[in-house]
C-alpha cells in the first residue's frame, strides 16, 4: 500500500543519503591524508630517525580507505536502488573490511601521537644534530635528515633547541663534540640572522643578549603540526566510522527485509 510504499521509499532515500555522505567523506579523507603525507612542514625526517613514523602510516592507510569508501558508497547506492541481495551483501562485507582498516588507522594515529614527547625530540636532536662520525650509511642519512630539518626549523620559526638554547648548555651532544663551547654555545641558526644568513651580531648572540638570539624553544613548532595531523586523521576517521556504522546497520536491516 501507499503507506508502506512511502516508508520503504523513505528508508531507501535515507540509505542513499547515508551513502552519499560516506562518499563525500571518503573524498575528504583522501584529500586530508594526501595533505598530511606531503609533509608541508618537513618534519618527517625527525620521525623517521626516531623510528616512530606510524602517524604517517596511518595517513597512508587513510588515503586508500578514502578511495574505498567512495567506490563502496557508489556500490551501496546501486544496491539499494536495485534492492539486490547479492550486491548489498558484497557491499556490507567490503564495508566491514574498510571499517576495520580505518579503525586501525585511527587507533594507530592516536596511539603513536602519545609517543611524541619533548624528550624524544630533545634526545634525538642532541644525538644526531651535526653528527659527524656516523656508523653506517643509514646512520649518516638519518643524521643529515635531522640536521637539515632542525636547521630549517630554527630558521623559519626563529627558535632554538627543544625547550630553548639552554638545551645546548645543559646536555652534551654530538654538536658539542665538534663545536667548542666558547665559540658555539648554541648553533649559529639560533642567532638572529640577516638577509644573507649571517648573524647580525655574533658576540651578542654568543653572550645571549636578548634580541640577538632566539630564546624560545622549537617544541611548539614541531608538536603543533604533528598534533594536527594525528588528531585530524584519528578524529575525522572516527566521525566517518560512526556514520558508517549507522549506515551499515540500516543496510543490514534493509537487506534482511528484501524479499525474493
Amino acid at each position, binding site marked *: *500500500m501507499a503507506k*508502506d*510504499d512511502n*516508508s*520503504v521509499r523513505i528508508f531507501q532515500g535515507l540509505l542513499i543519503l547515508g551513502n552519499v555522505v560516506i562518499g563525500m567523506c571518503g573524498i575528504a579523507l583522501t584529500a586530508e591524508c594526501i595533505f598530511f603525507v606531503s609533509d608541508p612542514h618537513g618534519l618527517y625526517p625527525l620521525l623517521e630517525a626516531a623510528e616512530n613514523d606510524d602517524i604517517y602510516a596511518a595517513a597512508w592507510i587513510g588515503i586508500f580507505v578514502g578511495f574505498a569508501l567512495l567506490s563502496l558508497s557508489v556500490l551501496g547506492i546501486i544496491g539499494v*536502488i*536495485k*534492492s539486490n*541481495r547479492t550486491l548489498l551483501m558484497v557491499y*556490507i*562485507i567490503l564495508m*566491514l573490511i574498510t*571499517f*576495520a582498516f580505518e*579503525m586501525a588507522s*585511527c*587507533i594507530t594515529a*592516536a*596511539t603513536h*601521537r*602519545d609517543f611524541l*614527547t619533548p*624528550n624524544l625530540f*630533545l*634526545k634525538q636532536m*642532541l*644525538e644526531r644534530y651535526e653528527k659527524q662520525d656516523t656508523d653506517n650509511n643509514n646512520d649518516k642519512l638519518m643524521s643529515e635528515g635531522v640536521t637539515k630539518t632542525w636547521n630549517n626549523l630554527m630558521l623559519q620559526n626563529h627558535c632554538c633547541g627543544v625547550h630553548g638554547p*639552554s638545551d645546548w*648548555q*645543559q*646536555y*652534551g651532544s654530538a654538536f*658539542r663534540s665538534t663545536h*667548542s*663551547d*666558547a*665559540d658555539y*654555545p648554541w648553533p649559529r641558526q639560533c642567532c638572529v640572522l640577516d638577509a644573507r644568513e649571517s648573524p647580525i651580531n655574533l*658576540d651578542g648572540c*654568543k*653572550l*645571549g*643578549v636578548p634580541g640577538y*638570539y632566539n*630564546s624560545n624553544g622549537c617544541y611548539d613548532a614541531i608538536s603543533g603540526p604533528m598534533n594536527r595531523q594525528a*588528531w585530524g586523521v*584519528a578524529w575525522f576517521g*572516527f566521525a566517518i*566510522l*560512526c556514520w558508517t*556504522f549507522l549506515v*551499515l*546497520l540500516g543496510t*543490514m536491516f534493509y*537487506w*534482511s*527485509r*528484501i*524479499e*525474493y
Partner: protein
Amino acid sequence: VSYTPTLTQRPLAGRLTASTFVLEQPRCVFEAQGDAPMIWLVVALDGGRWRTGASATGRAVPRGPLLTHRPAATGQFDPNTEPETPPLAFQTFPNNTAYATLGTSLSNYPCPPPTGDITVLRVGSETTCSRDPNRPSCNGPLPGPGPYRVKFVAWNSSGLQAETLWSEPITLLKAQAPDNLPVTGSGRSTGMIVLTSILSILFAVLLACLVALLVTCSDSWGSSSFFSTKADAVSVRRYNTHHVYDQPAARL
C-alpha cells in the same frame, strides 16, 4: 681596592656556560694614578682556604708554603707577578696557579659608563690562541667547571698599583649526557582510550549483526520463499522498472 668582581647581573643566556662566564666590567673602581695603568683580570682555581689577598698598597705577599693542607691557588697567587710572564700564562693553566688575561687600558673603562653600553667582559671567548705560547694573555676557554675566583689588578710601568678582592667562587655548567634522558611516553591519553574503545564496540556490534544476519537468513538466501516470521508488516519491494503491487500474501 675593596671591590669584589661579580658575574654580570644582566639576564644574558650565555652568562655561565661550560667554558666561559661573563663578568661585570670594573667601572669606577680604579683611579688613574700617574701614567695610565693597564687593568688585568686574574683567574685562579678556587680550592680550600685562601688568604684575603695583598693589601691595597701592593705590599708583596710572601709566597711560601700555605697554612692549609689543600692547594689553594688563590692563596698562592702572588700579585707582584707581572702579567704576560710565564707564571701567569694561560697556556699552562691550571698547572700553574693562575693566569692573567683581558689586559686593557683604564681608559677603556670610562667612568661613569655611558647609558646603553653593555658593560660586560666575557671570559673564555678566544679560542684561536689557547695553544699558542706566544700569547700568554690569551682569553681562552676555561678548561673545567671550576670553581674559579677572579680579581682585577692594575699595573703600570712601575709595578702593581692596585688589586681588587677575590670574587666569590664561580662554578661553570656541567653538561649531562643525553643518554639518560627518559623518552618513554607519558602514558595513554584519554582521547585515545575513548576512541579505541568506542571503535572496538562499534566494530564488534557490526560483526555480531552480520553473523546474526547470515545465520538467520542463510536458509532463505537465494531461495524464492520470503522471510517474514517477524510481525513486521513492512516489506521491501524489489524495484523494477514497472510497478508491481504489494504482495497481499504478506498481510495474511
